[in-house]
C-alpha cells in the first residue's frame, strides 16, 4: 500500500475533525476517555500496551484477564518436545501496570451492555467504556467430537489453550508405556494456528524418538490438506520414519468417536486403544464475544480497515475470535491487528493521526531439533475483507544450516513478540 500525500492529508483532516471528541467527552463526562480490553493475549495485551504507551496517559486503559501469569499457547509445542521449560512460556502483567499505567484486572468478563457501554465482571463490578476491545481467543464447539466435552479434558486434554492443559499433556506423554499409542484428533477449519497440530505431532514424535522410540502416533484428521503439509511430511519421513500415521477424510479421519473412560478412539468403525488422546475440537470465538452479541455463527465479523465489529462500531474484535478474511488465526496476526486497532482507537478518542492499515503474519514451526520452517504472508484491507497480497513458505530439501537459522529466528520472534505484548 502506498502512503501518498493525498491520503495523508485526508487522514490528517479527519484527525483534526475528530480532535473535538476528547474535549466534548471531558465536558460531558468529566474524565478521560476509557478503553476496556477483554483478554490479555497476543491481541489484547498488545492493544492495551500500544493504546496506553502512545496516548501518554490521555486514555484510561483497563485490561481484564483472569490469569495472573499468562502462559503462551505459541511455543507450547516446544515445551512438549523438551526444547522449552514451562516457565519459559510464562509472562506477568506487572510491567503493563507499572510502566504503562494499564489498570490490570484479574477477573472474568461475564457481560457486555452495548447500550450502556459497560462490561460486567464475575465479581459483580461494572466498568464503563468508550471503546471496547474484545480479544478473547477461542472456545470449543460443543459436540464437535462425539464422546468428548470439557468434563473429559483431564482424560483427553486439548492443550490448545496455554497453561495447565499443556502441562497435563506433557505429563501424559512422559507417562506413556513403552511402545504405546498417542492419538491426536485434529480440528476442522478454521482454527487457531493452522500448522499447530502438526508441529505438535512433530514435537511429540521428537520426545518419543528420544525416550520411547517404539511408540506410535495416529492423527485422525477431517481435513484433506493442511499448512506446510509437504514440509511436515518430508520431516516426519526423515526424522520419525514409521512412527506417524495420518488418517485423512478419505479414510474416515473425520468420523471419530472417543470414549474417555475406556481411553478408546473409534475412527470410522475401527477402535483404537490409546494411551494418550489429544482431542482438539472445532473452535469458535471466546464465549464473551457471543455474550456481547457481536458473533455471526462461530466468529465475530469485523471491518477490514480497523477491526471494528460489523455489529457495533464501538467494539473492536481482535485475533482468533474475529472473522476478517484471509489472515490465519495466530498470535502474530492478533498482534498485527492490535496495532491497527490501537491506532484507530487513539484516532477516534484523542484525534491522533490515523495511517492506512497494514497487516502481516509469519508462523514458524519446529519439526525436529534445529529443523525449523516458516510460512508468512502480507495482507491489506480491501472493501470486503483483509486479503492476502503475497506469501512465502520454506521449501522442502533446504539444507540443515538454513533450517537451524530459521529456528534461531523463531526464538528471536518469541522474544520480540512477548516484549511487544508485555513491555
Amino acid at each position, binding site marked *: 500500500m502506498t502512503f501518498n500525500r493525498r491520503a495523508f492529508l485526508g487522514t490528517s483532516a479527519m484527525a483534526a475533525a475528530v480532535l473535538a471528541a476528547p474535549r466534548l467527552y471531558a465536558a460531558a463526562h468529566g474524565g478521560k476517555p476509557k478503553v476496556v480490553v477483554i483478554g490479555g493475549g497476543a491481541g489484547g495485551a498488545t492493544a492495551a500496551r500500544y493504546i496506553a504507551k502512545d496516548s501518554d496517559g490521555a486514555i484510561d486503559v483497563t485490561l481484564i484477564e483472569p490469569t495472573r501469569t499468562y502462559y503462551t499457547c505459541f511455543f507450547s509445542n516446544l515445551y512438549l518436545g523438551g526444547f522449552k521449560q514451562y516457565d519459559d512460556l510464562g509472562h506477568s502483567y506487572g510491567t503493563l501496570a507499572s510502566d504503562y499505567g494499564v489498570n490490570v484486572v484479574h477477573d472474568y468478563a461475564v457481560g457486555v451492555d452495548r447500550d450502556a457501554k459497560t462490561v460486567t465482571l464475575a465479581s459483580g463490578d461494572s466498568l464503563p467504556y468508550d471503546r471496547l476491545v474484545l480479544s478473547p481467543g477461542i472456545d470449543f464447539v460443543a459436540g464437535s467430537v462425539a464422546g468428548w466435552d470439557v468434563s473429559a479434558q483431564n482424560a483427553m486434554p486439548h492443550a490448545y489453550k496455554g497453561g495447565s492443559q499443556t502441562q497435563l499433556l506433557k505429563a501424559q506423554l512422559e507417562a506413556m508405556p513403552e511402545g504405546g499409542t498417542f492419538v491426536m484428533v485434529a480440528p476442522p477449519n478454521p482454527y487457531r494456528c493452522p500448522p499447530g497440530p502438526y508441529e505438535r505431532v512433530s514435537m511429540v514424535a521428537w520426545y518419543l524418538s528420544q525416550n520411547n522410540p517404539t511408540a506410535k502416533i495416529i492423527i485422525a484428521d477431517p481435513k484433506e490438506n493442511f499448512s506446510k503439509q509437504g514440509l511436515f511430511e518430508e520431516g516426519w519421513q526423515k526424522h520419525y520414519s514409521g512412527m506417524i500415521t495420518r488418517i485423512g477424510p478419505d479414510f474416515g479421519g473425520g468420523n471419530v468417536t472417543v470414549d474417555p473412560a475406556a481411553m478408546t478412539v473409534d475412527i470410522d468403525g475401527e477402535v483404537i486403544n490409546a494411551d494418550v488422546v489429544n482431542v482438539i475440537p472445532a473452535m469458535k470465538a471466546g464465549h464473551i464475544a457471543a455474550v456481547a452479541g457481536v458473533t455471526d455463527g462461530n466468529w465475530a465479523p469485523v471491518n477490514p480497515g480497523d477491526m471494528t465489529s460489523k455489529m457495533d462500531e464501538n467494539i473492536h474484535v481482535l485475533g482468533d475470535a474475529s472473522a476478517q478474511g484471509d*489472515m490465519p488465526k495466530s498470535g502474530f496476526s492478533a498482534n498485527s491487528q492490535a496495532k491497527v486497532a490501537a491506532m484507530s482507537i487513539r484516532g477516534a478518542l484523542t484525534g491522533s493521526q490515523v495511517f492506512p492499515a497494514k497487516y502481516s503474519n509469519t508462523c514458524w514451526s519446529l519439526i525436529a531439533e534445529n529443523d525449523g520452517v516458516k510460512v508468512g504472508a502480507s495482507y491489506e484491507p480491501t472493501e470486503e475483507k483483509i486479503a492476502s497480497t503475497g506469501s512465502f513458505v520454506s521449501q522442502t530439501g533446504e539444507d540443515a544450516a538454513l533450517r537451524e537459522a530459521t529456528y534461531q529466528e523463531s526464538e528471536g520472534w518469541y522474544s520480540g513478540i512477548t516484549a511487544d505484548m508485555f513491555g
Partner: protein
Amino acid sequence: MTLLARFSLVAVVACLAQVATAAEEIGDAERGEALFRQCQSCHQIGPDATNRVGPHLNGVFGRTAGSVEGFRYSKAFERAGSKGLEWHIDTLGSFLENPKAIVPGTRMSYRGMADAQDRADLIAYMRDFSASPANIPESDPTARAVSHDLDPAILEIQGDPAYGEYLASECQTCHRVDGQDSGIPSIIAWPEDDFVIAMHAYKTKAREHPVMNMMAGRLSNEEIAALAAYFATLE
C-alpha cells in the same frame, strides 16, 4: 449540523480514505460466476466437482499444470507441467487470454477470452474454490497488492519519524526496540543511509530473506525513509 451528523461525516471520510489506499480485488467473483457458464460444458468447479471432458478446477491455484489425479492430459499439458508451469493469477490470465499460445497442442477447444476484466472476474470466481489463506497461509493471494516503483533519489527522501513510529510497530513483533538480539538482529540506532540501503536490498531481493523480502517489498520509498528516520532516533 448536529454532532451526530458531523461524526457520521467523519466516518464517511475515513472510509473513503481507506478505500483509496486499499488493495485491489482480483475481480468481481459474482460476474465471474456468470462467465464460468461458458466453461461448464467441459469443467466442473465447487463441491462434488469431478473430471469431465476437462479436469475439475477445485484447488487450481498453486497447482502444477497437468497434475489432477485421474485425468488423462494431452502430451502438451504433461510437458508444460513437467517444465514447471503452475497456475497462479498471472499464468491463468495468460492461458485464458490465448490457451494455445501458452500450451501449444492443448486439446482445450476454447479460442480465448479477450477482455481483461472478464478474465479477472472469472479468475476471482475460480479463486474461491482453492485453498483459503486463512487456513493454509502459503496458498495463493486473493488480492493484488499496490505496486511500488523505485525512485532514483531514494536516499534524498527525508523520512517522517512520526509515520516511521507507526510503521515500526510492524517491525517490533520480531525486532526488540531495546536492541537485544535473541536470534533476530537489532535495528536501532543505525545511520539512516545504511538502514535505507539494507531495506532496499531486501525490497529488490538483492539480499535474500523471505520475511524481510516480504516486509520491505510492500514499503514505499517514503516509508523506508520514515522507518530509517524513526529507528535512528532510538537508543
